[in-house]
């Protein structure tokens, strides 16, 4: 094992000799430079390997006390401290150093061209920065800490100033001011501490407990902490750092933001044990405020680099608060590893990667940042942004989950700030990403990623992914849960294949997964599994109609479908949430593939991420308030161990159990369930939370929307039903949640349906229609009895059938006519007869007209409602269901009937790939219509946990108040229909087939199809009468919220004046105020 001393020696030596070698040739010096950096990385890597395996070897599993367990101590010059520099190398040090060095190495590669072009000083300074970082991490001595801090600082601002631009000079100077203040404070603090402890060794000082030694000790510790804190750029004393981030080249920034910050953070970590409790507490709040405020301000940033700077600042703040939290609650071992290490790891690589990627276009604001040309570059960008935003499978995701779960009861405010800050961060990152994708598509100048950037960035991305998966596995997540991601990855690697072939592979994957998992399911779970896998597969087949390639489409599609399956597979809250998040982001990226989808996708992401955070906090709270015997062990242990109740989830569903007999858990349980319900309702698009829905559905690609509506939207329903079964007691423990749920459901149905009536865009019509239909399902779920839940499941299945048909028809029509405006179509029945039949059957089913299966849903719903005296609900639901006629007729009339436009004469029938799933849906629908018991009886038996409230007699379904024989209705209707048809055929002489203008037109002849087709604003009188109901109140509300958030961010940003004096003042004020707060 190489002695850690070489980590100090190598950079020193290389820095010393490099200028000599430079005389001999730049090639030589560059070789030496990179060799030195590689050596640093290799040494720290070998230490990481050995310490970690040492721990594993010694204790068998990660989980013991990590510090110094398998490390080593090194004393320079062979002397004991204080005469020598004492260096420690343990697993933590190795971890920090290895990844910091790796990031540094990457940065050096990225900066390669500059290193080659500029004077050798740059290399020297770079090495000195690295040297400072090594020292900061390893040293055990306070004074040495100071020395390395100084080395690091001086090297850094020299490096900054080396750019010789006005901005960088000024930034370097601001850095010097801040650094100077920090150094002064540090030195004073050190002096005091030496006075108290009589030693400069950190361990001695900690042992001396300076904080307990009166005010002087506290002050000393405070000064020390404040110095380190300033270096870590807390809000609001971080203006100087942001200027640095903005004005310095990205490669250098990546070093400052990643290597330096990591080292200083580690230094803070080392002195943490000597901190008094109030200071720890203060650090928690400083950290989380920095996180929240920086992200809030980040919303208003236009410069990409400055935006990333805010993000860096925020992440460091988060790390500080995590340090404080782990000190406050005495976290150690796995918890600390998962939370702190994961955030740290995720932060350095995602941030470094982003800074590297921005290097080429660093002067642009995000609005003009057109992104890499190669698809791989976009993928890298996506990985870094996802990692930073805390999406799975990246490390931050696990960390946030565990963090929230651990502190939700103790520190709800911190959780709130954490989640809100994360939401802001996700919004501005995804906004940037969306714009990039959009600009790239609209053929604005995008750039090639040079290999010197692409290689390190790719390495970072791989590291992030691997690290994330490892972290996930460490959190005891079943490997199976990574299946969607793996499938996406595999298909992503096959991106060079022809698009159709990819589609077939994806279909094969989904089929295999379905064939494998569906038989394992039972009860309700199998219903949803059938919907998810079966519906997903059919939608996947439908996408094969596309003629042009769309890279990334099938990987995302497959990941999305499989993640829906994973939702059912999940055996723990974390696994459920993992699948949920995979579903969310894969659908976000899918939506983003749409041509005009930049804004809608952002809206979708905002609501989805927000909803997911609400869901997460609800789940965390739920896990926290459940009785300990259900979640074995302490709260802290609960986050990683598999929750036993949830482990049985798929089993519970389908097995008889009186689910509402559990005692209530009080307010917190109710609150938790409410949060969970809000999370699901966001996905469902319940009234008020729906504003993302129409745009996202409309602007997503035409082959994605059917999946979103017919399949994806059921995820929320599944979640809702699952959690009702899991935590039934929480339903009533705060307020009557089912009551609210029912009304939310019926109002969603009403407003969704009504809004659909007034839309011109075919996809928006069905988007609102989906919203309305899901409203009925939510209403049915809220009934909490067997008939109600049968209704919910029945509607879930039927909605898949008819909405799948409708959206596929819409896709076909849009594909063939090239427009989404219904009034521009018309008369397509003769050109697209099969699509027409599909649409016809679908609208009959959707509207609930017998004899098709849609009526079953209506019958079940009204029976369930009326039997329980929910008369108002029934009335509103009925009103909504009649309103549905309006948009349905309007759709089928305006598109298929009426006047064919001249330019649509050559329109052909939909492609076979689109028709095939429709035919399957039609057959399924007709089968269910002929024999309703085929579907309803299995559903009823799946819901055996409820007391049975409807039975069957010879094919007649009998509820407590009504009865219905679907087969008989079908037979009677068919017979009458055929009789009447025969009669007409008998009495009528052969009718003359005529053309579209052979109409009675008040004795005139129609002029043009456009002026003869009554299609635009079809329900004008209805709008006059009820249009006031669709005033976009919810939209305005959310828009106002976004505006206010943005203005607060903008206002907060004003404190950063760009003036060095002001920044110095900020720092001093920050320290002073902090001091008074602590000392009080």
């Amino acid at each position, binding site marked *: 094992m190489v002695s850690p001393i070489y980590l100090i020696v190598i950079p020193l030596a290389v820095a010393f000799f490099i200028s000599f070698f430079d005389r001999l040739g730049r090639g030589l010096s560059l070789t030496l430079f990179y060799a030195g950096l590689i050596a640093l990385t290799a040494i720290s890597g070998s230490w990481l390997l050995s310490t970690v395996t040492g721990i594993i070897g010694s204790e068998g599993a990660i989980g013991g006390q990590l510090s110094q367990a398998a490390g080593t101590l090194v004393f320079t010059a062979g002397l004991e401290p204080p005469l020598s520099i004492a260096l420690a190398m343990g697993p933590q040090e190795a971890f920090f150093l290895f990844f910091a060095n790796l990031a540094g190495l990457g940065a050096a590669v990225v900066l390669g061209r500059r290193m080659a072009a500029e004077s050798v000083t740059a290399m020297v300074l770079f090495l000195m920065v690295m040297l400072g970082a090594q020292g900061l991490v390893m040293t055990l001595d306070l004074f040495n800490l100071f020395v390395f801090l100084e080395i690091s600082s001086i090297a850094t601002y020299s490096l900054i100033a080396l750019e010789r631009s006005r901005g960088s000079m000024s930034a370097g100077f601001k850095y010097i001011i801040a650094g100077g203040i920090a150094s002064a404070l540090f030195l004073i603090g050190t002096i005091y501490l030496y006075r108290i402890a009589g030693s400069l060794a950190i361990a001695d000082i900690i042992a001396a407990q300076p904080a307990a030694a009166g005010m002087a000790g506290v002050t000393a510790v405070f000064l020390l902490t404040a110095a380190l804190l300033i270096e870590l750029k807390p809000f609001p004393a971080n203006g100087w750092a942001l200027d640095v981030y903005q004005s310095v080249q990205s490669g250098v920034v990546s070093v400052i933001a990643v290597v330096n910050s990591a080292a200083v953070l580690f230094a803070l970590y080392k002195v943490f044990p000597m901190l008094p409790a109030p200071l720890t507490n203060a650090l928690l709040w400083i950290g989380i405020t920095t996180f929240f405020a920086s992200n809030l301000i980040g919303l208003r940033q236009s410069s990409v680099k400055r935006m990333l700077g805010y993000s860096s600042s925020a992440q460091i703040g988060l790390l500080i608060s995590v340090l404080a939290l782990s000190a406050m609650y005495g976290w150690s071992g796995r918890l600390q590893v998962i939370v702190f290490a994961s955030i740290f790891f995720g932060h350095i690589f995602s941030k470094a990667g982003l800074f590297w990627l921005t290097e080429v276009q660093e002067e642009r604001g995000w609005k003009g940042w057109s992104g890499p040309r190669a698809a791989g570059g976009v993928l890298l960008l996506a990985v870094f942004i996802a990692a930073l935003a805390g999406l799975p499978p990246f490390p931050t995701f696990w960390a946030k989950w565990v963090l929230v779960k651990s502190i939700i009861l103790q520190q709800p405010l911190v959780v709130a700030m954490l989640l809100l800050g994360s939401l802001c961060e996700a919004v501005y990152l995804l906004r940037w990403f969306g714009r990039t994708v959009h600009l790239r598509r609209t053929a604005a100048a995008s750039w090639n990623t040079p290999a010197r950037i692409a290689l390190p960035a790719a390495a970072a991305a791989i590291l992030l992914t691997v690290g994330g998966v490892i972290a996930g596995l460490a959190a005891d997540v079943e490997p199976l849960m990574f299946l969607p991601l793996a499938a996406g990855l595999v298909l992503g690697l096959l991106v060079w294949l022809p698009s159709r072939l990819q589609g077939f592979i994806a279909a094969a994957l989904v089929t295999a997964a379905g064939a494998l998992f569906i038989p394992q399911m039972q009860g309700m779970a199998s219903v949803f599994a059938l919907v998810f896998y079966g519906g997903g597969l059919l939608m996947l087949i439908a996408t094969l109609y596309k003629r042009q390639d769309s890279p990334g489409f099938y990987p995302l599609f497959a990941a999305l479908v499989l993640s829906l399956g994973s939702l059912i597979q999940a055996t723990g809250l974390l696994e459920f949430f993992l699948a949920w998040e995979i579903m969310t982001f894969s659908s976000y990226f899918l939506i983003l593939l749409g041509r005009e989808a930049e804004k809608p996708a952002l809206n979708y992401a905002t609501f989805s991420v927000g909803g997911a955070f609400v869901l997460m906090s609800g789940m965390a709270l739920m896990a926290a308030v459940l009785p300990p015997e259900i979640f074995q062990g302490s709260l802290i242990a609960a986050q990683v161990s598999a929750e036993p109740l949830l482990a049985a989830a798929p089993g519970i569903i389908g097995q008889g159990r009186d689910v509402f007999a559990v005692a209530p858990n009080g307010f917190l349980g109710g609150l938790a369930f409410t949060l969970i319900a809000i999370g699901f309702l966001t996905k469902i698009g319940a009234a008020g939370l729906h504003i993302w829905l129409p745009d996202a559905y409309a602007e997503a690609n035409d082959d994605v929307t059917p999946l979103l509506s017919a399949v994806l939207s059921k995820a929320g329903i599944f979640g809702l039903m699952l959690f009702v079964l899991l935590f039934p007691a929480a339903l009533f423990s705060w307020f009557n949640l089912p009551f609210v749920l029912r009304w939310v459901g019926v109002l969603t149905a009403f407003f969704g349906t009504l809004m659909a009536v007034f839309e*011109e865009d075919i996809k928006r019509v069905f988007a609102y229609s989906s919203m309305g239909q899901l409203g009925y399902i939510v209403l049915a779920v809220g009934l909490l009895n067997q008939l109600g839940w049968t209704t919910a499941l029945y509607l879930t299945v039927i909605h898949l059938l008819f909405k799948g048909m409708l959206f596929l028809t819409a896709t076909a029509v849009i594909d063939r006519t090239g427009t989404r405006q219904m009034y521009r179509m018309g008369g397509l029945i003769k050109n697209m007869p099969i699509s027409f039949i599909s649409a016809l059957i679908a609208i009959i089913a959707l509207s609930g007209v017998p004899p098709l299966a849609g009526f079953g849903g209506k019958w079940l719903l009204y029976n369930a409602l009326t039997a329980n005296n929910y008369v108002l609900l029934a009335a509103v639901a009925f009103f909504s269901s009649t309103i549905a006629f309006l948009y349905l007729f309007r759709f089928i009339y305006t598109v298929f009937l009426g006047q*064919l436009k*001249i330019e649509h*004469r050559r329109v052909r029938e939909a492609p076979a790939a689109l028709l095939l799933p429709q035919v399957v849906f039609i057959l399924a629908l007709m089968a269910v219509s002929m024999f309703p018991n085929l579907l309803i009886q299995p559903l009823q038996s799946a819901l055996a946990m409820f007391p049975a409230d409807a039975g069957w007699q010879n094919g007649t379904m009998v509820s407590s108040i009504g009865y219905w024989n679907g087969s008989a209705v079908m037979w009677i209707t068919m017979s009458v229909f055929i009789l009447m048809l025969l009669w007409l055929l008998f009495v009528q*002489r052969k009718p*003359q*087939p*005529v*053309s*579209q*203008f*052979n109409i*009675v037109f008040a*004795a*005139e*002849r129609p*002029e*043009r*199809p*456009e002026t003869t087709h009554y299609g*635009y*604003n079809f329900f004008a009188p209805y*709008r*006059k009468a009820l*249009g*006031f109901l669709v*005033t976009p109140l919810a939209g305005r509300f959310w828009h106002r919220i976004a505006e206010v958030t943005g203005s607060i961010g903008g206002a907060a940003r004003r404190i950063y004046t760009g003036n060095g004096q002001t920044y110095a003042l900020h720092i001093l004020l920050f320290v002073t105020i902090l001091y008074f707060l602590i000392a009080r």
Partner: protein
Amino acid sequence: MSTDINKEDTQTQQESIRQVVEAMGEYPGAADASDPQLFCEARPKVEKPFRGVFEKFLNWARANSLWVLGFGTGCGAIELRPLMTSRFDASRFGVAGRPTPRQSSVFIIGGYASVKTLKRIVRSYEQMQNPKFVIALGSCTINGGMYWDSYNTINRIDQYIPVDVYITGCMPRPEAILAGFVKLQELIKAGRGEKANEYAEHFDWYKANQKKVIKDWDMPDYNW
């Protein structure tokens, strides 16, 4: 509240209409009448009546269910209104008004017919279904009446469409019109109400006459 909505509504409507108009570019004018996808080009056929008692029964039903096309082609239309009033009550005879030629069986030419109206008369007549009957009111339909020398008013309607019953006068009173209806009923019952077939038989002659005066013939030859 509601007025605001309406106003907003109108504005958005106008905006959308503007967009549509812009998208259409210059208004392209009427579509081509000889386009077989727009207009059916089939000629009318002679539809043979049934024979014997059955046809007599049907004719009786037809005669007693005269649905009049509500199309006032001239000043005589004003004489039709009183027919439905309590004084004359044509519904006793099975006469009823019908707003569309598709559902009507009797076409009343209400007096003078300008060339422009003639075009609409022909179109409406052809859109009625066989069997169909025509009653022509007043001198104008017989010989041009007071418009006999007008450059724009035809003189004899029977040159253009077949007429079952003429009712003279300028204008004939409702009593006369009722008498005309009774006459028509007699004709139908006698099996002589086959003018629709006559029209189909002499289609070319009628069409030539029509086209002689209707110069911008932007319809198909037969309006189904």
